[in-house]
């Protein structure tokens, strides 16, 4: 079969979809995924994701901003028992991004069987990976963090 014929027989193109709306996947293969936030034009507070109003100063004027891909490990737990289908143990963390927004995320690259207070403040960088396939056959992409080299 020629290459053209093979391509004609290939299944409909699958896309990648972010697991949450505030994860923006790159438009081109070389691009970087990032988290989207909303910044209050009045008090400057930055939120994760979209907002209708600022919870702190009550302003209705917010603008979309791109959030930092790096941060530090604030606190963590290591989950050993959870719903079926989730590989355990995993590190469930609160990550403080450099721009002041905190996110819940998994951290990889640290040994979940050796949790330790030395982990506090670890510099982290975000990465993305496919976690599942949805009902339409799209790849579901999630973000995680790992220690920055």
């Amino acid at each position, binding site marked *: 079969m020629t290459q053209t014929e093979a391509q004609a027989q290939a299944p409909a193109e699958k896309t990648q979809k972010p697991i*949450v709306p505030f994860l923006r996947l790159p438009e081109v293969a070389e691009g970087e995924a990032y988290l989207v936030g909303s910044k209050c034009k009045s008090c400057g507070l930055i939120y994760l994701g979209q907002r209708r109003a600022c919870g702190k100063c009550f302003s209705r004027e917010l603008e979309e901003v791109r959030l930092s891909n790096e941060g530090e490990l604030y606190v963590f*737990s290591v989950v*050993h*028992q959870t719903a079926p289908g989730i590989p355990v143990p995993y590190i469930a963390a609160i990550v403080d991004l450099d721009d002041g927004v905190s996110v819940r*995320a998994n951290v990889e690259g640290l040994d979940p069987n050796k949790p330790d207070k030395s982990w506090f403040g670890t510099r982290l960088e975000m990465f993305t990976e496919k976690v599942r396939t949805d009902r339409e056959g799209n790849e*579901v992409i999630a973000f995680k963090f790992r220690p920055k080299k």
Partner: protein
Amino acid sequence: MRDVVILGVGLIRFGRYPEKTVIDLASEACLNALEDAGVSMKDVQFFASGNLYQANAMVGQRILKEIGHTGIPVVNVANACATGSTAFRMAYSAVASGQYDIAMAVGSEQMGKAGLLGGGGGGGGGGGGGGGFDPAYITEGVLGSGTMPAVFSHTGIEHMRRYGSTVEHFVKVAYKNHKNSVHTPYAQYQQAFTMEEIANSRMISWPNTLLMCCPTGDGAAAAVIASADKARQFTTHPIKVAASVLTSDPYTEHDLAMFDVNTLTRNAAQEAYKLAGITGRDVNVVELHDCFATAELVHYENLGLCPEGEAHHWLDEGKFDIGGRVPVNASGGLISRGHPLGATGVCGIAEISWQLRGQAGGRQVEGAKIGLAHVIGLGSACTVQILQK
């Protein structure tokens, strides 16, 4: 606002009652409270029922049909783990405002074996983003965890980061509470464990092991309250409600990603102490929200029982033991007595009432005159009630 007193309290032993309905459980607790108060349902003018799992199913009215089909106003309350104590506060407000003279609050829950991994444990967060019902978009375990054992681990770990408390301190909290529960006839579990047994029990979400997590179960607790004036007609032991405060979580740096259970507790405690005219150091006995062993330590400081950063030192020195400076969770806390969600908030109030009356048996805190009941409902709500003899 006029003075309000507790005329009577009642509950049923927390445990598992698969053969009963939640209305059975709640009705029994109510009848126990009415008997303790020497009050009939014909005297009760306002009824607040706290229940989570059947929050949309008119539990309050169904209880009244069992015990007093009188047509009085009923409010059904939901506030996560603070459901019962919020129901109490609703009843308190109804009487303090002058609108009603005698009111009743009951908290109940029948949980089956779902556990607190699911959303029923209260608190939002951890849910999926887009994608509707496609389970491929569930974020639990993929973007961190919103399960209660993990979330409340974060609470304790933050104290570890700030003040240097250790895993051993969290184990010690569980050790203290399990030891206390031996003297609590209504506790779901009444068994002491060694530090090793607790530390080596099955890991749920580090550092919380199984014996550091409150069990789910069924239960109900109720309280009958009245205006101080009206209380004179009844010959039980009135316990004064010196303060009944409810707060939600205000904006703080981490609150949107990681539930901040500290600020709203501090706010509630400050307001309550002001209303009662006391400080945290005047409190003789405390029941606070130890849903997980990692959740208790921070509240020693949040409630002003000890200085900032000293929680683990005071714990080491036995200051929170029965016989110590300010016994915390003499009942065994949620960890031992169980956490039927809606019931817990009223149970703490019942326990403090018994302590102040000298009716706490083997777990009695000698000479207790001022007691405090604290609950956190994740998402969040905090209630602080100060009771005085």
